[in-house]
């Protein structure tokens, strides 16, 4: 029995968690989360270099730093890299690291599928970026409006890398999202009811639902474009009656929920960081949660505000103006709740908290410029100008990225066992904050002054020279601050101050276990009694409103030394997620290069799926025999 089942698969199931193979075959959410974050930071640097090329080209009038074609590829790939390869996966990295700990689970519901998500993300990202190697990177703008992306008008393989890269990446996003939906519904610790869940978990849940509902729509749009390009179908061929609006609708029906996919995890992170450093519970917890839900629902009702100027007719434009204005309400409610959280708190200005406060300030600016173009009559003026570029950078950089960096500083000690350097961190924060405003602030001015976005260059009589140069200098300052962040990350990882289990005096379950987190997470699954349960175990607030530490408080009584951690059963490592991901990536890449590669890829994937479905567990005992997961799906 013992050896018989082990060879039940094609390969024996790996057991070692050491060395490189330990990482390659890992199914541990913490390791997968760290790989996600590391990879996303590398792609973030790559996207940043592309941004600096764009900014250099725009720094003075009539510049010819790069050719117009390269320039088009630069801004297109900058957007795609930042959205799909940096912000989204960095958020997913935090889902992996934090969600199981905050809900008191040992792992996610489907550990191997989780590993699959990561590998598919990595290969999909490489496929999307591969166009650069052939000088054929996508140059259509990230929205790839058909019919301009049909073979007749975009003959090189740039669009093919775009279509196949995004299709492959969609598999990764959706597999990850399915996993977190099931994990959050089904793996909460005893007593952890929905309205005791940390807000970050809530936002992960809503984001995941948006992912699994929005990605099928873009998948269909990409498939339609692929059929047009490869098989001569007519989806977007005007001569056959095809309608360019169809692509725009499908793209933005996906594209707008996607915006909330990018920002909701960030809102979750600041909702964790602000209460911790204000030493107060989150103000208006239910209101914040319901606002998140309303944003998730209303995110589906506003997509046509990206299309105000295409001529949808006054009724459609009017309706989408109103819904777009309304969606600002739940967002504003959250902002006020965060500010009320800090009100009269004993605020500790750590780097993580500075980033969270910076998030609020910059996100409000981005939100307000968003409201200003929710007004369709005003949007006619702003459409396709740098004003919109300023808006999206204030919400995506000032919003998402600031919050994700806040999360990096906040949770770094939990997973590495070392603190990030605070002094260094604060210098880095202020450089980034100043650089960010110098880079993106002036775009409001030049945008209002009529400077179109995606423009290759301009003449000096337009009056845009000065602010463009300022903007470029700000971008380089921003780039420098990112290098400092990297330096801080690497240096702190190697020789940062040793962190204890609860360095910030935190509120949620992840701070109740040692740093770095043992591979089984919790020696005993905690019993949760209240919201901010870990805080409630440490402190009590009397009727006079004064908070006192509980004597000998803190530990979970059931979490004492008597647990034999070797008896904790965790999922074994596995080769199959990697094999399946390689097969899937080859299948996608083969469509661009040669169909033979696709066929080989399909076969590898098939082997991967069957190996996966019939993979045995390593420690067969009576109880686990029936645990041979069948995951054909």
């Amino acid at each position: 029995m013992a050896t018989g089942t082990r060879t039940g698969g094609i390969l024996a199931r790996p057991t070692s968690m050491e060395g490189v193979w330990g990482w390659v075959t890992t199914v541990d959410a913490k390791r997968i989360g760290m790989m996600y974050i590391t990879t996303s930071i590398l792609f973030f640097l790559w996207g940043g270099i592309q941004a600096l090329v764009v900014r250099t080209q725009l720094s003075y009038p009539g510049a010819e730093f790069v050719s117009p074609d390269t320039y088009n590829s630069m801004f297109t790939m900058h957007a795609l890299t930042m959205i799909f390869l940096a912000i989204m996966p960095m958020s997913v990295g935090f889902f992996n690291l934090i969600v199981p700990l905050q809900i008191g689970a040992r792992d996610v519901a489907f550990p191997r599928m989780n590993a699959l998500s990561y590998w598919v993300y990595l290969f999909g990202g490489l496929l999307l970026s591969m166009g650069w190697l052939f000088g054929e990177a996508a140059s259509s703008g990230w929205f790839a409006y058909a019919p301009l992306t049909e073979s007749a008008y975009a003959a090189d393989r740039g669009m093919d890398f775009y279509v196949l890269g995004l299709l492959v990446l969609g598999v990764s996003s959706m597999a990850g999202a399915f996993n977190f939906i099931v994990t959050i519904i089904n793996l909460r610790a005893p007593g952890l009811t929905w309205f005791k869940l940390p807000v970050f978990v809530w936002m992960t849940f809503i984001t995941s639902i948006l992912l699994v509902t929005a990605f099928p729509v873009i998948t269909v749009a990409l498939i339609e474009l692929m059929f047009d390009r490869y098989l001569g179908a007519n989806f977007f061929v005007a001569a056959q009656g095809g309608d360019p609006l169809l692509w725009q609708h499908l793209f933005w029906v996906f594209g707008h929920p996607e915006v909330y996919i990018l920002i909701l995890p960030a809102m979750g992170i600041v909702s964790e960081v602000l209460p911790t450093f204000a030493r107060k519970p989150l103000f208006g917890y239910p209101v914040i949660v319901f606002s998140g839900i309303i944003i998730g629902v209303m995110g589906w009702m506003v997509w046509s505000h990206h299309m105000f100027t295409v001529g949808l007719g006054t009724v459609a434009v009017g309706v989408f103006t109103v819904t777009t204005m309304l969606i600002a309400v739940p967002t504003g409610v959250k902002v006020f709740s965060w500010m009320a959280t800090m009100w009269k708190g004993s605020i500790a200005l750590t780097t993580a908290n500075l980033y969270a406060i910076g998030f609020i300030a910059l996100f409000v600016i981005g939100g307000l410029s968003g409201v200003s173009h929710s007004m369709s009559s005003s949007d006619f003026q702003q459409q396709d100008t740098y004003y919109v570029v300023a808006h999206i950078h204030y919400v995506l950089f000032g919003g998402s990225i600031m919050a994700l960096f806040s999360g990096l500083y906040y949770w770094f000690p939990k997973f590495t066992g070392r603190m990030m350097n605070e002094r260094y961190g604060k210098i880095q924060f202020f450089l980034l904050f100043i650089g960010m405003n110098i880079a993106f602030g002036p775009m409001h001015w030049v945008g209002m002054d009529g400077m179109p976005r995606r423009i290759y260059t301009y003449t000096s009589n337009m009056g845009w020279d000065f602010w463009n140069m300022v903007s470029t200098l700000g971008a380089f300052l921003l780039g420098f601050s990112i290098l400092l962040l990297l330096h801080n990350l690497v240096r702190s990882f190697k020789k940062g101050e040793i962190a204890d289990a609860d360095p910030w005096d935190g509120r949620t379950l992840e701070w109740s276990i040692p740093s770095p987190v043992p591979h089984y997470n919790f020696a005993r699954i905690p019993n949760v009694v209240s919201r901010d349960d870990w805080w409630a175990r440490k402190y009590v607030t009397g009727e006079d409103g004064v908070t006192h530490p509980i004597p000998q408080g803190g530990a979970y009584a059931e979490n004492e030394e008597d647990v034999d951690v070797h008896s904790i059963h965790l999922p074994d490592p596995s080769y199959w997620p990697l094999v399946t991901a390689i097969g899937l990536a080859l299948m996608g890449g083969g469509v661009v290069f040669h169909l033979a590669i696709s066929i080989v890829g399909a076969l590898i994937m098939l082997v991967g799926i069957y190996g996966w479905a019939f993979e045995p567990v390593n420690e067969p005992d009576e109880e686990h025999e029936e645990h041979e997961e069948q995951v054909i799906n």
Partner: protein
Amino acid sequence: MEATIAPQHDEHATTTGLDHRKMLMWTFLGSDCLFFGSLIATYLIYRGQSIQGPFPYEVFDIPYTSVSAFVLLMSSLTMVLALSAIQRGDQRNFRIWVIATAVLGSVFLGGQVYEFTLFVSEGLTVKTNLFGTTFFVLTGFHGVHVTIGVFMLLSLVGASFAGKVKQHQSINVELIGLYWHFVDIVWIVIFTVVYLVEAPAIEAAKAAVGH
């Protein structure tokens, strides 16, 4: 006290008491609704927009497609019988009904291949017009779903002969069943909005020929 402390070993304890995989399958099917929803929406938006023929009323044979739709619907019945058999631990009947489901699914696929071939011979391809484009992509992706389902059923048969489908693992059969029923339901929608709605046009065309 036992009830409040999560047992160390019980990997099956879930918050809701529902199996992870079942929840995964339901979530996946919800997501797949959006996938087919977008394809169907595309078909409906372009319905009647083709500039040149062949048009739907010229190629559709509703009685023929009704038979293959009926075959697919019956496969849902055999799927239910298969699940019921494995839940009773009746391996023999389980295999019979799973094989029957796979055969019915394959008959449906054969019917679709024949129909596609016929349409191509009548001059309708994915390149011809908007109808060809949207029709082949929508029904083709449904066919891909059925094909994957047939593969899963055949894997189930193989696993059953290898003694790997036990009574207490009937959840695996149930999951494939959920998927199978979903694909059936999608076909009901496609059959209605693609084929049946053309019935008046087909009648009109016949009447025109009659005169």
